[in-house]
C-alpha cells in the first residue's frame, strides 16, 4: 500500500448491531463514522417494549448504549444520512455521505420539544407502526439520540401550502431553517461494517390474514408499541378499532415465513420467542384475557428460551395451537380466526378481539443499494452473504468490508450483539496490524 492505511471505520446502520460494533472499536481508541438513515440511533430495539427471556425493559438497557454512542469522543454520528458512494479499497475507502435536510439547525437546536408541541400537523407515525401519531416536525422518541427533530417535508403544511411556520415562530433558539439543503460529507475510512438490519414483510401481501382491512389485525412491532410504556397507549393493551381492552388475543406465527411457495421460504428465527413474550406480557396486563398462539414448530433454542416458552404455557396459561392459520376476517365486531390443531386433528375457530401477526423478516429497504455501492453479494432474498457461512460468518468476499447483525439474516439481540462484536474484532485486528506496520515504517 502506497500510503498508510486509515485506522477509521465506517459503520452503516446504528441499530444495536452498528452501535455495538462502534463501541467496541471506539473503546479500543479508533475512530468510527456511524451513519444512520433515521434521525436518531437505536434501530429496531428502540421500538421494543421488553426483551426475552428476562423481560428487561428494552428502553432501559438500550438508552445507556445510545447515550454512550452519542457522547463517545471517537464516534462521529451521522444521522438522517445515507451513504451515497464508496470508492477505494481496504485501508483507504472514500465515502460520500448525504445528510438529508432536517430543516432544523441542529447546532442551535436544544431539543426542547416546543416545536413538536406547537406543530399543528399530525401524521401517522412509522415508528409507532401506524397505531400512533407524530407531528410533521418530530423526533422518534423522547429519548432520541441525538435529541434533535427533523421536518418531514411531505407532511409539513408550510412545504405544502407555503404558510404555517408555527415551529419557527415558537422556536426559542431560531433553529428552524426552511432553506436548509442536503449536505454532502466526505469521509475516508480503512474498513466498513454493514449493519443495515431488517424490515418486516409487507403483510398486505398476505390477503388471507386481513391486515390493512381489519383494524384489529396488527403486526408484532405494533404490538410492541402497544405494550411499550412510551408507546401511543402508554403501555395499555387497547385494540385500534375502538380502544377496548381485548380479552381474546390470537398470535399468528410464520406470517409469510416458511412459505416457499407464496412468500419467504426461510424461518424468521425470532418470532417464536417474541410471540411467547407478547402473550406473556399481554397476560401480565390483562389478567383475565386469553391468549392463543398458532405455530408450526416452537423454536425456542437459546439460553433459557425453552424454559421461557414453557412458562408462557404453564404460568400464563397461553394456549399453543399447532397449525397455520388459514384465514382471518371480520364478523360481528370480532376478528374471526380459522385455524387448525394438527395435534388433535380438529379444525378450530377463535372469535378474537385482536390478532397479532408475526411477519417474516426481510432485509432493510435500501440494503440492495448498499450492496451495490459496496459490491457485496446478497442471497436471493436480499440478505448479505458472508464469505463462508461456517468459519467466516462476519466477513465478506470484499476485503475490509464486514457484516453485523440482521443484515445477514434474521437474528435475535444477543446473537446480533455477539456477531457485531465479531465484526469489530475483524476491524480491530486489521487496525492493530496497521498500527504495527505504520509504527515500523
Amino acid at each position, binding site marked *: 500500500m502506497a500510503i498508510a492505511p486509515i485506522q477509521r471505520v465506517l459503520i452503516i446502520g446504528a441499530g444495536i448491531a452498528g452501535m455495538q460494533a462502534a463501541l467496541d472499536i471506539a473503546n479500543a481508541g479508533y475512530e468510527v463514522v456511524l451513519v444512520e438513515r433515521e434521525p436518531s440511533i437505536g434501530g429496531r430495539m428502540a421500538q421494543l417494549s421488553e426483551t426475552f*427471556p428476562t423481560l428487561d425493559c428494552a428502553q432501559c438497557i438500550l438508552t445507556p448504549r445510545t447515550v454512550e454512542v452519542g457522547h463517545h469522543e471517537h464516534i462521529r454520528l451521522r444521522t438522517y444520512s445515507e451513504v451515497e458512494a464508496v470508492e477505494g479499497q481496504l485501508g483507504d475507502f472514500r465515502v460520500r455521505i448525504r445528510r438529508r435536510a432536517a430543516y432544523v439547525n441542529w447546532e442551535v437546536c436544544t431539543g426542547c420539544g416546543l416545536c413538536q408541541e406547537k406543530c399543528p400537523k399530525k401524521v401517522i407515525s412509522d415508528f409507532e407502526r401506524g397505531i400512533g401519531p407524530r407531528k410533521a416536525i418530530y423526533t422518534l422518541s423522547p429519548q432520541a439520540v441525538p435529541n434533535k427533530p427533523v421536518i418531514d417535508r411531505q407532511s409539513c403544511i408550510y412545504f405544502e401550502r407555503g404558510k404555517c411556520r408555527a415551529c419557527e415562530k415558537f422556536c426559542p433558539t431560531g433553529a428552524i431553517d426552511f432553506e436548509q439543503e442536503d449536505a454532502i460529507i466526505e469521509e475516508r475510512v480503512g474498513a466498513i461494517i454493514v449493519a443495515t438490519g431488517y424490515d418486516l414483510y409487507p403483510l398486505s401481501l398476505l390477503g388471507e390474514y386481513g391486515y390493512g382491512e381489519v383494524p384489529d389485525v396488527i403486526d408484532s412491532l405494533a404490538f410492541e408499541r402497544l405494550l411499550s410504556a412510551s408507546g401511543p397507549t402508554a403501555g395499555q393493551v387497547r385494540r385500534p378499532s375502538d380502544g377496548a381492552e381485548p380479552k381474546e388475543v390470537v398470535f399468528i406465527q410464520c406470517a409469510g415465513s416458511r412459505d416457499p411457495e407464496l412468500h419467504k421460504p426461510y424461518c424468521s428465527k425470532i418470532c417464536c420467542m417474541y410471540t411467547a413474550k407478547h402473550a406473556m406480557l399481554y397476560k401480565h396486563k390483562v389478567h383475565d384475557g386469553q391468549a392463543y398462539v398458532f405455530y408450526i414448530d416452537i423454536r425456542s433454542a437459546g439460553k433459557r428460551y425453552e424454559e421461557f416458552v414453557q412458562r408462557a404455557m404453564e404460568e400464563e396459561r397461553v394456549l399453543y395451537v399447532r397449525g397455520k392459520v388459514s384465514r382471518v376476517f371480520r364478523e360481528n365486531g370480532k376478528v374471526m380466526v380459522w385455524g387448525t390443531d394438527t395435534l388433535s386433528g380438529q379444525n378450530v375457530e377463535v372469535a378474537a378481539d385482536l390478532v397479532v401477526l408475526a411477519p417474516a423478516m426481510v432485509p432493510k429497504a435500501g440494503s440492495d443499494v448498499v450492496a451495490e455501492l459496496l459490491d457485496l453479494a446478497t442471497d436471493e432474498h436480499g440478505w448479505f452473504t458472508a464469505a463462508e457461512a461456517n468459519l467466516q460468518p462476519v466477513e465478506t468476499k470484499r476485503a475490509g468490508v464486514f457484516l453485523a447483525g440482521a443484515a445477514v439474516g434474521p437474528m435475535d439481540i444477543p446473537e446480533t450483539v455477539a456477531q457485531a462484536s465479531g465484526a469489530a474484532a475483524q476491524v480491530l485486528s486489521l487496525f492493530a496490524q496497521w498500527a504495527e506496520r505504520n509504527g515500523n515504517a
Partner: protein
Amino acid sequence: MRKIGIFVCHCGLNIAGTIDVQRVVEEIKKYPGVAFAADYKYMCSDPGQALIRQAIADYGLDGIVVAACSPAMHEVTFRKAARAAGVNPYLTEIANIREQISWVHQTQPEEATRKAIETIATIVEKVRYDEALVPFSLPVVKRALVIGGGIAGMTTALHIADAGYPVVLVEREAQLGGKMRQLSGLYLNFDAAPDLLETKIAAVMQHPNIQVLTNAEVVELGGYVGNFTVKISSRFQVPGYKLQVPGSEIAQSGINPQPETLQPETLQPETPQPETFTFDIGAIVVATGFDLLPKSELGEYGGGRPPDVIDGLQFERMLAEGEIRRPSDGAVPKEVVWVQCAGSRDPELHMPYCSKICCMYVAKQAMAYKQRVPDGQAYVFYIDIRSQGKGYEEFVQRAMTEYDVLYLRGKVARVFEEDGRVVVYGVDTLSGKAVEVQADLVVLATAVVPSAGARDLAQRLRVSTDEYGFFSEAHPKLRPVESLTAGIFLAGAAQFPKDIPETVAQASGAAAKVLGLFAQREMVQEPTIAFVDEELCAGCGLCVAACPYEARVMHPWKPIAVVQTALCQGCGACVVACPNKASSLRNLSTEQLLTMMEPVL
C-alpha cells in the same frame, strides 16, 4: 463550607410538565450551602452546559448538583462539564427527578414538586460531604489466555494474535480441534470439517504470537483484570506441538513462562510428568465447549448397552470414516432412526433446555446417510423442528423432499434390542398413531451439556455458571460474550449450545473485547469503591466472605482486611457485613447516608 450550585433541567416537558421547576429553584436556593440555583430547558445541551461552566466561574462553586434524568444518562456529561470549569468530577452529582419523580407522578404535580425539592436536598447533603477523588489507573498486561483449543478458542486466539498480541492457548486434550475434530462435514454444504479444521490448526500452530499448551489445564488463577497470574499444568507435550514461542517474543514482553517444578530436559517422553507454567495475563477467554449427555443416563433408550444405539458424535465418526456400518456386526444399516431431544427439553428427568444444534445436525446426518446408502430409509423423531438460521429451514425441507427422510412428530418412548434389530417405540402425533420401527441403527441426539470439568474451572476462575454448568454471560441481551468477572470473556458452547457459525461469530466477539482492553494504555478504575478503616477493622473476615467480587482479602500478616481496588465494584456488601463499621464506600459513607436522609424525614 462548600459552595454548591443547583441546576434544574426541564427536559422539555418531561420534567417541567409535572414539576414546578421555578418553585424548585426558589425553594432550593434557601437551602443551607446552596450558593446558586438555576433552571434550563435542556441542561445537557451545549447552552445548558455553558450555563454550568459560567456559574462555576462566577460564583466560585465547588460542588454541583444537576437535577435531571437518571445518572445512567448524563452523569458523565455533567461531570465532564464541571471538570472543564475546574470542579472535581466526583463533587458533581445527579438528582434524578425525571425517571423517579416526574415520570411516575404525572398526576400529582404538587407532591412531585415537593419530592423533587427534597430529593435535591438529599443530594446537596451528599455533595457537602463528598471527597474530591481521582480515578485509579492500572497497567494492562497485553497477553491473553484462551482456555480451550476447539474452533471457538482457536478463532479467538487467531484474532488476538493477528492484532499483534501474544496468546497462550491451553488445551486439555493432546490435540487442538475440540469437538469439530470429530465431525465429518458441516451443514449446509457438507464441507469437509477436517479440511477446514486443519487449515485453522495450522494457522494457530504457525502463528508467532500463539503459544499452544496441549494436555494442559489451568490450575490456579490470581489477580484481576489486566493483571491476572495464571498457573497452567501441562501433563506432557506431544511431539510436533509447540512448547515455546520464539524466545525473543517472550523476552521482549519481559515476562517469561516460569517452569516451577521441572526443567524440560529432565522430562522423559515415555514417562510424562506434569510441568507447571506461570503466566502474567491481561485477559482470559473461556472456550471450553461441550460434551454430550452420556447414553447411560437414558435408560428408556437402552442405557448405553445396545451397540447399535449410538449418539450423534459416534455417527459423525462413521460419516468421517466414509462407511456407514453398524457397530454390532458391521452390516450396512438400511433403516436408521434418529431420536431427537434425547435428554433435552426434559425438565422432569434430564435437561430442561433445548440443545439447539441437534435439529440441524440430525437433518445433515440423515441426508449424509442417504447419500451413502441411497436405498436406506431414514426416520427422524422430533418435537419441534428448530431450523432457525440462514438457509436452515430450506436445508431441512431438502432432507424431507430430496432425501425422503421421514419426519415423525413425537418423542420416542423406548428403544430396545430384539432379534438383532433395534426396536423403536415412537408416535406420530400428527396422524395420531403410535408407531414402531424395526431399525438397524438408532442415533440418539443426546443433550448438549457443559464440558466435563467446566464447573471446577469456573470455580478456579471465580466466574459464575448457571445451574447446569454453562458459563454465565454478563447480560443475556447486551453483554453475551462477557462473564460477570471483569477481564474474563466467553466464547462458544461453554456459554450455551451453539452451532459452528454462531460459535465463530461469538468467539470473534470475545476477541473484540480483549482487543478493546489491550488497546488501552492503562485501565481506569472508578474511585467510588470500598475502603477499610484500619483503626476500626478487627480482622474478623466477614467482609471477605460477603464480597461477591473476591475484592476483599485478609492482609498477609496484619489482622485486617484489605480491598483489592481493581476488583471492587463498590456494591457495599462489605459495609453491611462489617460489625465494626470499618468498611465504607468512598462518597457514600454511612455518615453521608444519614445526613442525606435528614431532608426527607
